[in-house]
């Protein structure tokens, strides 16, 4: 019988080296920017780089063959994390941004002048700029779904935004600013009504447990390893077989070819077609190790834990004078990402002081979401974002730090 999974909070925190090494209060609430690396990922990375390092898809000596086999097994791990049986639908990338760029480049040939790409006002710049680059090349038009005052997608007028010209709908799964979860089912139906492709940025969803990719309705799904407690430098673009097969590669060179002559190059089939050059092998193996470990955790307990912390956070924030929550004030349809601003205090002052006073790591800024900041008539917000290793001490330290900050600066 396998041992019971670690309980969320302090028990789970023991699996993360950074918390064991922390010498002073360290309340890490910047998980939406990057998660801390777990033991399993750190060990996989170190093992590969110090004991098993060889390039993949090339050499025939034993070490190289073992590296290639491990890389292939990592693809199977990531497919399992997505509830997918076809591992070749998993493309390894350098991160979610690269994955979305591959998607935008690959879908370009479906776009002509006047065709429409529907984005949302919640998007991270990584799910805006690649589409703008593609739209400019193809003469296509960008539109955006608005958000409500609660920081959720406003789908009331979706039927007006989705037209016969809509070829692509690209959306975040979970907002990195408001924590709101997108109603992907609704967008899937809207896409189906006009034959559009649904692209989902899952960067904020991937750290919160295995994903049922079929249930998301996505045609393409992107996420990065570093947010799901693995190393920086790796990520995944998952795509439906027939879509990936139709894509032109974004980068050329290395093992992404079938045959090269000076007259013409033919490309390898997916996923290798999109993996030009030496891939981030160690980071990919670390990501797979993290995914395998995450799959053993009790995600029902973690979800309850994180929601309890979110409630405590929202309650605490609402006691502070001049504080405005930018996002849902309730617990329904959200993850533990909470943005806020405070009258007359800049987000960077909030972040600097909460770190200085209580050792709280918060993020302040536009969160690579300038259109959303514009929507809420602000330049920057402060943001607390939760992971399974956070506990009530982290929330209480934040509220104490904010209380002191407000007293100091107003």
């Amino acid at each position: 019988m396998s041992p019971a999974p670690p309980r969320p909070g302090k028990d789970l925190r023991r699996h993360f080296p950074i918390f064991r090494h922390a010498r002073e209060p360290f309340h890490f609430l910047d998980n939406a920017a990057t998660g801390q690396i777990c033991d399993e990922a750190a060990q996989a990375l170190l093992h590969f780089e110090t004991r098993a390092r060889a390039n993949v898809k090339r050499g025939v000596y034993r070490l190289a063959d073992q590296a290639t086999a491990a890389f292939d097994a990592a693809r199977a791990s990531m497919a399992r994390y997505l509830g997918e049986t076809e591992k070749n639908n998993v493309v390894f990338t350098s991160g979610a941004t690269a994955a979305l760029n591959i998607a935008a480049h690959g879908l370009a040939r479906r776009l002509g002048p006047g065709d429409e790409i529907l984005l949302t006002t919640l998007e991270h710049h990584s799910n805006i700029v690649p589409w703008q680059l593609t739209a400019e090349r193809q003469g296509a038009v960008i539109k955006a779904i608005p958000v409500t005052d609660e920081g959720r997608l406003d789908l009331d007028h979706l039927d007006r935004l989705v037209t016969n010209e809509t070829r692509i709908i690209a959306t975040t799964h979970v907002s990195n600013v408001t924590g709101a979860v997108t109603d992907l089912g609704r967008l899937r139906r809207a896409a189906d009504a006009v034959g559009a492709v649904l692209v989902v940025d899952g960067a904020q969803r991937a750290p919160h447990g295995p994903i049922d990719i079929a249930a998301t309705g996505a045609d393409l799904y992107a996420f990065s390893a570093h947010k799901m407690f693995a190393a920086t430098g790796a990520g995944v673009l998952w795509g439906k077989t027939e879509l990936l097969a139709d894509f032109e590669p974004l980068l050329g060179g290395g093992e992404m070819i079938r045959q090269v002559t000076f007259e013409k190059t033919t490309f390898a089939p997916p996923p290798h077609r999109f993996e030009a050059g030496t891939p981030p092998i160690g980071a990919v193996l670390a990501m797979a190790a993290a995914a395998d470990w995450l799959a053993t955790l009790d995600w029902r307990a973690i979800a309850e834990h994180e929601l309890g912390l979110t409630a405590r956070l929202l309650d605490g924030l609402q006691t502070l004078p001049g504080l405005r929550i930018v996002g849902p004030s309730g617990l329904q349809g959200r993850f533990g990402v909470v943005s806020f601003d405070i009258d007359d205090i800049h987000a960077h002052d909030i972040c600097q002081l909460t770190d200085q006073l209580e050792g709280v790591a918060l993020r302040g800024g536009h969160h690579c979401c300038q259109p959303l900041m514009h929507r809420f008539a602000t330049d920057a917000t402060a943001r607390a974002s939760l992971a399974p290793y956070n506990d009530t001490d982290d929330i209480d330290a934040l509220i104490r730090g904010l209380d002191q900050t407000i007293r100091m600066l107003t």
Partner: protein
Amino acid sequence: MTQSLYNEAIIEAGKDKTRAGRLPNPDATATADNPLCGDRVTIDLRAENGAITDLAHTTRGCLLTKAAAALLASHARGRPLATARALQAAARAYLEGESNDPPFPELAVMAPVKTVKSRHDCVTIAFDALADAAASVRAAKEGAQGEE
């Protein structure tokens, strides 16, 4: 905990509104942005005989940005236009530890910022705006002389 970055002098300077606002009919206006956080400083200035006779700043940003803009605005009045570019370089050199001396004594309150690399730009964007505004006055005057 980290060493205190926000000393009382910085907090005080950040609240100083003495030279905050716009100047009517400025000889030059320049704006500098910090793309990382969206902070923005706009400086209006008037000049005569190669010296800054009046200036005002409009600052949207954090306490450090506001404090640096306020301190610079107080210091720069009456100084030669030609020193603005040197002030900009001296501020950066001071923050980066290349120089132990602040560009003017009042800026020594920013000493704790030296060790926080990510906040250097908060201090320097006011200096960037002033240097650009001064350069634009000088360029306009030189242009006018050339036309005579």
